[in-house]
């Protein structure tokens, strides 16, 4: 930019369209990656609250063994929409928001590679969000076939209407896939082409490595899901028989299409959270990320392995013995690169000078819950054990430890860590710690009792259950309601801090990274002068400068 030197003198005095102090920009087709990042995060969080509300009604139903609070059709619609919203409307958009906001800043770019594509990808999110929500109001209600939409149940369409909940569901999921592919093309291109001079692969922050690994999965996996969804839509609407056994189709084929993408999809979700852990722990332990190059490369190894494990969701399905054994072994190998990361984080924290800010507490809580989920995950990879707990609450407990314990806690860690950067203001630590305590207790109380219930044989997706499971379900429901309450201090903290929190300064955590060298919030186009990177990203304890040019340093 030619006016770089002028802005360097007085960055905030320079009025420009879309300036950071104009709140209306969040409701426009802005092409600024920081605006889009926050648009993604706030939209996704609204759907997180909606999906959580559905879960709380479900937990209300499960307080007692009988199906007595809601009709069975309503319960089935609730768990279908809860899962769909939490994945397609909350985790994916939320992580795209974090990546959008952070990647260009962390690699020293002024924006994403394709800013207009970026905005278009975001605006698809409210569009398919509306379609999905609208399915509550069509005759027959929303899809009731679970978020897997397994045929033949998903093809039954008892309303007989062409416009039904299931059709809208498929449409929304397909649009979500298109949005995700647009985002993936953009992020991968940005990371490959727009890193600052001097930022070789092994000078790139771990978060960007994990985002790259995750978005590569979107590129190879989503076509399979999209193909499966299109065939399902044809079966549902025009009477083809790809998956309909009555007409010679094969329902198990759909399961392969579905899980070929949807298992790797959990790595799309968890990898960027691994990246958040890798960013947060060094800052608050004041130590370099232990074994950074190995941690970085292990993300790419996870990407590669994630493509050959999908059948572990089908150990009890119509799969032959050899397939079960093969995929049992491939699935278990994923624990090796994952274990490397966990040990590296523990070694990063060990011997450091810890500061337990809210962000650090959430990262530690997330790591400990992920550790538990990883161990039950290896158990589930073991086919003979999985056959007992497959489709029981043991699995529900396991993946909620991943999705809530690691991903949601990791998201909160990221928000508290980068909130001062995003808003220029500081949040209130007291409210933050209250939020952490409620979330940590609520999550464990909600999801730990699901494991014994599952071991005892309680199937997932049931609106009613045998009285022997009641004890664990009452505990889980109490935890669920506590999680609902836990969001209140967070929302209060965010709203009040954003509007009147104390000024944060450019780098309140004394963190190392390009994003901490610019003002808070960062100016339009981020960098007056593109920095030249000369050091690896985690130089805590050694006084080497991160960049060669010192113009923007405090």
């Amino acid at each position, binding site marked *: 930019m030619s006016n770089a030197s002028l802005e360097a003198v007085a960055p905030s005095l320079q009025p420009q369209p879309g300036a950071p102090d104009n709140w209306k920009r969040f409701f426009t087709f802005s092409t600024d990656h920081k605006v889009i990042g926050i648009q993604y995060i706030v939209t996704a969080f609204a759907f997180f609250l909606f999906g959580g509300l559905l879960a709380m009604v479900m937990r209300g139903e499960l307080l007692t063994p009988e199906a007595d609070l809601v009709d069975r059709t309503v319960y089935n619609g609730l768990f279908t929409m809860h899962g769909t919203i939490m994945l397609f409307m909350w985790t994916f958009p939320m992580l795209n928001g974090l990546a959008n906001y952070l990647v260009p800043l962390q690699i020293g770019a002024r924006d994403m590679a394709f800013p207009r594509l970026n905005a278009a990808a975001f605006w698809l999110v409210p569009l398919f969000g509306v379609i999905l929500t609208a399915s509550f109001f069509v005759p027959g209600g929303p899809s009731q076939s679970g978020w897997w939409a397994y045929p033949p149940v998903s093809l*039954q369409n008892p309303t007989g209407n062409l416009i039904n909940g299931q059709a809208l569901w498929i449409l929304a999921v397909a649009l979500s896939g298109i949005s995700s592919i647009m985002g993936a093309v953009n992020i991968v291109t940005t990371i490959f082409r727009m890193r600052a001079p001097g930022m070789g692969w092994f000078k790139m922050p771990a978060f960007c490595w994990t985002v790259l690994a995750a978005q590569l999965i979107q590129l190879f996996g989503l076509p399979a899901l999209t193909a499966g969804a299109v065939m399902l839509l044809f079966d549902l609407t025009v009477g083809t028989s790809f998956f309909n056994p009555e007409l010679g189709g094969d329902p198990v084929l759909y399961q392969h299409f579905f899980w070929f993408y949807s298992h790797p999809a959990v790595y799309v979700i968890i990898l960027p959270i691994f990246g958040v852990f890798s960013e947060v722990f060094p800052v608050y332990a004041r*130590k370099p990320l232990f074994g950074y190059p190995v941690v970085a490369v292990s993300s790419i190894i996870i990407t590669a392995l994630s493509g050959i494990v999908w059948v572990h969701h089908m150990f009890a399905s119509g799969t032959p*013995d050899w397939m079960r054994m093969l995929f049992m072994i491939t699935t278990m190998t994923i624990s090796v690169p994952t274990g490397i990361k966990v040990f*590296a984080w523990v070694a990063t924290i*060990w011997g450091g000078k810890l500061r337990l800010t809210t962000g650090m507490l959430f990262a530690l809580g997330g790591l400990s819950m992920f550790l538990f989920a990883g161990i039950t995950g290896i158990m589930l990879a073991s086919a003979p054990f999985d056959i*007992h707990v497959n*489709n029981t609450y043991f699995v529900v407990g396991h993946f909620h430890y991943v999705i809530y314990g690691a991903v949601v806690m990791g998201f909160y860690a990221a928000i508290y860590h980068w909130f001062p950067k995003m808003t220029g203001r500081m949040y209130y630590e007291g409210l933050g710690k209250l939020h952490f305590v409620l979330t940590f207790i609520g999550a464990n109380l909600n999801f730990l009792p699901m494991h014994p219930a599952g071991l005892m*044989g309680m199937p997932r997706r049931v609106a009613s259950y045998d009285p022997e499971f009641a004890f664990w379900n009452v505990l889980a429901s109490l935890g669920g309601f506590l999680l609902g309450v836990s969001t209140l201090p967070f929302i209060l903290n965010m709203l009040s801090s954003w509007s009147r929190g104390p000024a944060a300064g450019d780098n309140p955590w004394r963190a190392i990274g390009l994003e901490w060298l610019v003002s808070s919030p960062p100016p339009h186009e981020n960098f007056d002068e593109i920095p030249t990177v000369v050091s690896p990203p985690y130089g805590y304890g050694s006084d080497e400068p991160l960049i060669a040019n010192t113009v923007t340093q405090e």
Partner: protein
Amino acid sequence: MNRRTIIRLGVLAIADLLISLWMGQQAYRWMPPQASAESVLVDNLFSFMTTLGSFIFFGVMGTLLYSIVYQRAPKYDSSDGPPIEGNVKLEVVWTTIPILLVVWIAGFSYQTYDRMSILGPIEPMAMGMPTAAAAGLATATEPQEPIQVYARQWAWEFYYPEQAVSSTELHLPVNQRARLVLSSEDVLHGFFVAAFRVKQDVVPGRAIDFEFTPIREGRYRLRDSEYSGTYFAANQTNVVVESAADYEQWLAMAAATPLTPAENVAYEEFNQATENAIDLGWATVKPAPAPIVNYASSEEDFHE
């Protein structure tokens, strides 16, 4: 490392090991009763994985908690920690050990699955009746014809071809290999008996041979484990494991009983007004009428 550190680490490792071994023993108590030969195999595997998993979990959590408690920066201390960027020897160790553990767990699991041998050939229905009798673990008696298991929305029905007996309750003789052929008349269902630790999706259009060995007399719960639509949760019935004599007597009694409609939760619920607080009148697939069988189980039987 000096000698005191090594001793202290050794003591902690032994404590972790003892706790983990205790957890491994507890693991048996989290499971339903062991009512099949397969359940013994699965529980041993689960106990083993619980022991290993506990050792890792408590080891890592202990290290983390030690850091959190003892390695906090003092107030007003803004200095950095030691600039340790890695340790190749340590990284090689924590890559190699998980690989070895994975090989161990996979080997144990493979062996367990092989010994369970629950799944026969899966054949398309058009191929006709599968030949389950050809598969062969030696049993005390001559191989019986397999029991036909029919799943539908939302009922289970069992058919004993030799005696021409139909039932909504699955009766099995103890200590004999149970041979079933699973088929579905509409959507996916799942044959799941927690006390047996066995589960198999029932796939429409396929006849799936499935077998296991009950070893403990009693009454157990068969639950639908693959989501099958509106009344999925109610699609359950009983499995009765009894002595060979009682089993024969039950078969003879059932064969002499005329066909009667069984109780069926889904069908009855569908045909009566709902009393739930939130009912939005969403359409459902109509439940199949209650099965008409020789022996009709009663829902009260299980909770007596």
